[in-house]
């Protein structure tokens, strides 16, 4: 099968700064790739390029079978509909409730209300928090709502930018379980993280990026984690 992400010599410019300076990377479906590296290495840039939110200036870039270079409008939409990005910013409307937000974004991606409800239940947002405006949530609750959106959309490629940040212990365990489930269901997962222990325990492969290039690429775990919700693979 063709890889979910395939980059060869990918360069991406932010202004005039080459945040990616020639990246080679392949991510297969079912893989959980941990992206690590110092601050400013280009992790966020890489994830955003994969979501077609930033242009790849030169080099080859294929994501989910789409060539990012000659992407037309409809193809880009089709691609993005299959991509779930969990970024620092949560992408939620502050003035709408959690339920309204999740329902809106889920339906926008073609999912239905039931998916939205299921995702909220999975993230334990179906209690008191359901009808609280997102702007009033705590940082971690907000991240959970954002995760619920990702889950309800059922993407084929998960791009997670420091997904553990802000989540409490239970939330972290839950997230790890979700990532494992997603990978087992055939999604490709790329997660950028500085939380070494936590992230390494779920990743099937660790890629180190520095100065906009991949400096190390090694398989860690032999297979994706097996048990749902397992806090740490042994």
């Amino acid at each position, binding site marked *: 099968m063709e890889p979910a992400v395939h980059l060869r010599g990918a360069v991406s410019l932010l202004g005039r700064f080459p945040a990616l300076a020639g990246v080679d990377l392949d991510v297969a479906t079912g893989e959980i790739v941990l992206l690590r590296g110092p601050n400013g290495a280009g992790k966020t840039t890489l994830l955003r390029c994969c979501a077609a*939110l930033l242009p790849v200036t030169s080099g080859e870039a294929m994501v989910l079978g789409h060539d990012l270079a000659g992407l037309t409008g409809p193809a880009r939409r089709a691609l993005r509909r299959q*991509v779930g990005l969990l970024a620092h*910013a*949560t992408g939620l409307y502050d003035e709408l409730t959690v339920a309204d937000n999740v329902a*809106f974004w889920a339906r*926008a*991606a073609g999912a239905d209300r039931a998916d939205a409800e299921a995702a909220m239940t999975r993230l334990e947002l179906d209690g008191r928090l359901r009808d609280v405006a997102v702007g009033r949530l705590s940082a971690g609750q907000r991240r959970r709502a954002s995760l619920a959106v990702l889950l309800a959309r059922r993407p084929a490629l998960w791009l997670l930018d420091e997904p553990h940040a802000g989540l409490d212990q239970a939330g972290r365990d839950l997230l790890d379980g979700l990532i494992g489930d997603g990978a087992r269901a055939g999604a490709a997962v790329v997660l950028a993280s500085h939380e070494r222990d936590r992230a390494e325990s779920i990743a099937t492969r660790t890629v180190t990026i520095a100065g906009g290039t991949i400096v190390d690429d090694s398989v860690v775990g032999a297979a994706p984690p097996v048990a749902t919700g397992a806090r740490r693979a042994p």
Partner: protein
Amino acid sequence: MLRDAALVAGKDLRLEARSRVALNQVAPFALLVLMLFAFALDPDRGILARVTPGLYWVAVLFSGLLAVQRAFAVESTDGVADALRLSGLDPAGVFLGKVAAVAVQLLALEVLLGLGVVVLYGADPSSVALLVPTCLAATLGLAAAGSVYGILAAGLRVRETLLPLLLLPVLAPVLIAATSAFESALGGFPGEGWRWLGLLVVFAALYTGLGLATFGVLLEDG
């Protein structure tokens, strides 16, 4: 596309229902603009009566600007612009949804300002046959052009200042045409008014077409 438009418009109206910004802030602002112009133009009824249509439309323009600003402020916070791009929504649908939501608010504003003009300036609304279609066409034009530039400015740090700058000159033709149509209607030569109305319709069609065609591109660059 229409499903996406309904989704977006529904979301916007729900947001307004929760925050009441248009009701509590934009509407009083519109009345205020009307009063301000009256101050600026001297307590001289002669002038006021002659320029009533112009002032009406300037007031609609400024408060409409505020409405557009608000409509796209909510799309600019905390990664929503990215989320919108990733959502898989049809850009044309998003465009139509925003236009519909803004247009509903504008129409409400226009009715309000209409009352204000009748009361404050003593204008006399008679030739409804011309006034109503003028309002509708102008509203669509404002909402369409507003949405095109609104999405362009959304997510930029300088949104608040850039949007008025971009939008006002574009809307100048609407202002002129609507004003002239109103003048003709109130002045009693509707014949000329219909020509201006035609211009408004063309403008609205043009910007709706432009929006439908380019919203995808604009959304990309948000």
